[in-house]
């Protein structure tokens, strides 16, 4: 049978299995395996099934994933996010909408340690929402800024989405991490700008908080110093070439462990909870990775990526129209699927096209990650919103989705900005030592 037709049938079958609620990782692996049998042979498919899962996981490079996850879990379970929030609350909480701005800032800082959007949204849902509620912030603004701020977790390094992108496309994980810093800060600033504009237009949305003395502000810096120092050590070490990504992850995890002990926050219960949650996240991420690798072998045999490249490049359409269509397609997929899954499913097919059109692979990784962030807050499957609504039970999900809209527009603006000026993304990675 024609490999392209087998490929199309395989992709349709995959979507059918996903609609039937099969686990995404298992569906990709199963379809990849069956497709491999059709296009190659049963024996070679079984051989692939024996070798590939073990060889994919027994990897030194991939140890960055559990180690960075562990670093985040130590920070999460020892409640370090609350110190960040308190610090920013004292510095900018007195501004109109200041608490919402502090929440976004704290989300960005916390994301730099945890790399998890869900953990960030859950933590600040519990810490920041009651405080904003106390100052009569509108539910829309309060929940919108937490859900959107939480998404920064997968853009600001360390980020498991960027790690997976690096593995699938064979790009440097260190460069991808460094490339995520400025766009992450840009996006955080855009969110703050949105809050400023909203509260300026309608001050009742978010009243100003109390003012604190300079001494109180300086003291608050001390509490967060170790956490910010850890970020500077990990990312600075990566940027200067002092650490590889794996070394940075090991140092980061051990550093977070030590900080949690020094702050007397790491009880045995917290330690075990951190290890348990890391094990759970590692399991589902690697299951997806194994599934993606088997599926990728099948996709390569179908020759669909090659045909797609020659068709799109041959059509002579503007590359910006193509990239807009790609982003739009990712957004639509993001309405129904979780970001990590879209990444491993679609990137192997679309990546050769994007590179052939002359886009930088690091830039594309960042753009796709922002699109993945949007999928975290887009209805009906906005995972961040689900998590937040579990924490903030008194606010209907509909209100949270409405509150997110201005931040969603800011994300589109960020993508447009980074597309018009790719140097914003590429400046830091290109200057790495």
């Amino acid at each position, binding site marked *: 049978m024609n490999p392209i037709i087998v490929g199309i049938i395989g992709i349709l079958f995959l979507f059918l*299995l*996903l*609609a*039937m*609620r*099969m*686990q*995404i*990782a*298992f569906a990709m*692996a*199963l379809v990849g*395996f069956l497709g491999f049998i059709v296009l190659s042979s049963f024996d070679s498919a*079984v*051989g692939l*099934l*024996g*070798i590939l*899962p*073990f060889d994919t*996981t*027994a*990897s*030194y490079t*991939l*140890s960055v994933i*559990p*180690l960075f996850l*562990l670093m985040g879990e130590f920070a999460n379970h020892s409640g370090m996010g609350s110190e960040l929030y308190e610090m920013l609350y004292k510095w900018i909480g007195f501004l109109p909408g200041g608490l919402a701005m502090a929440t976004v800032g704290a989300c960005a800082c916390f994301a730099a340690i945890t790399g998890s959007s869900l953990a960030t949204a859950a933590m600040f849902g519990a810490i920041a929402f009651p405080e904003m509620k106390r100052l009569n912030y509108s539910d829309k603004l309060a929940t919108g800024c937490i859900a959107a701020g939480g998404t920064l977790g997968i853009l600001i390094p360390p980020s498991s989405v960027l790690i997976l992108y690096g593995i699938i496309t064979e790009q440097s994980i260190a460069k991808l991490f460094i490339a995520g810093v400025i766009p992450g800060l840009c996006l955080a600033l855009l969110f703050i700008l949105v809050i400023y504009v909203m509260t300026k237009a309608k001050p009742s949305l978010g009243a100003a908080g109390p003012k604190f003395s300079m001494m109180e502000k300086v003291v608050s810096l001390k509490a967060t110093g170790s956490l910010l120092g850890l970020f500077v050590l990990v990312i600075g070490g990566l940027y200067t070439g*002092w*650490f590889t990504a*794996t*070394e940075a*992850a*090991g*140092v980061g*995890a*051990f550093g977070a*462990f030590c900080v949690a002990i020094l702050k007397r926050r790491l009880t045995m219960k917290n330690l*075990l909870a951190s*290890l*348990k949650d*890391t*094990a*759970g996240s*590692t*399991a*589902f991420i*690697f*299951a*997806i990775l194994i599934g993606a690798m088997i599926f990728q072998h099948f996709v390569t045999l179908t020759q669909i990526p090659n045909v797609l490249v020659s068709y799109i490049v041959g059509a002579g359409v503007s590359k910006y129209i193509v990239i807009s269509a790609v982003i739009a397609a990712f957004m639509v997929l993001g309405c*129904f*699927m*979780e970001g*990590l*899954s879209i990444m491993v499913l679609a990137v192997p097919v679309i990546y050769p096209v994007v590179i052939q059109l002359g886009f930088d692979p690091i830039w594309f990784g960042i753009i796709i990650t922002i699109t993945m962030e949007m999928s975290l807050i887009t209805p*009906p*499957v906005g995972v961040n919103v689900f998590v937040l609504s579990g924490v903030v039970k008194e606010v209907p999900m509909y209100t949270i989705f409405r509150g997110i809209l201005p931040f969603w527009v800011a994300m589109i603006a960020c993508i447009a900005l980074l597309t018009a000026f790719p140097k914003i993304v590429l400046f830091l990675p290109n200057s790495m030592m």
Partner: protein
Amino acid sequence: METKPPARGFESWVNLVAKYADHVTWGVLFFLMVITMADVFLRKIFHTSILGTVEITELSMAAIVFCSLAECQVHDGHIKVDILLKGFSKRVQAVFDLITQTACFLFFSMMTWAMFHYAIAMKEGGEVTIDLSLPKYPIVWVACAGCALLAMVLLCKSLKALREVFES
């Protein structure tokens, strides 16, 4: 609020083994963090390193992943798209779960079998790591056992779905 019925018989045994396998992951994770940090520290400060860190890390990674897959599935931690089935009756949902979980059980049984043969080939070929000459096949056995355990968890899930088809 709907509560989950407690696991019985075979399922409770499978869940218990999955839980203990997950505890192995916790230990190896902690070990991985310590050995990575120790290696970096020695390399950057004393310009020496722990022999075989790369291969120890690689073998640890396989143990971490395959020992945690089953426990993740016990708690339904593997991501799926469940929004499309939510509108259907419980019985229809159970029928779909029965089909998909049985297919997954068969697939992971096949993967276990394939990895079993890979481990035998590795043992017969005498494949060892470069620096420490550690045999690789025991870790492939561990991976194989992890896959088998995941297959057992999926079998329990499909049996549970079968019960729901008849009970609902």
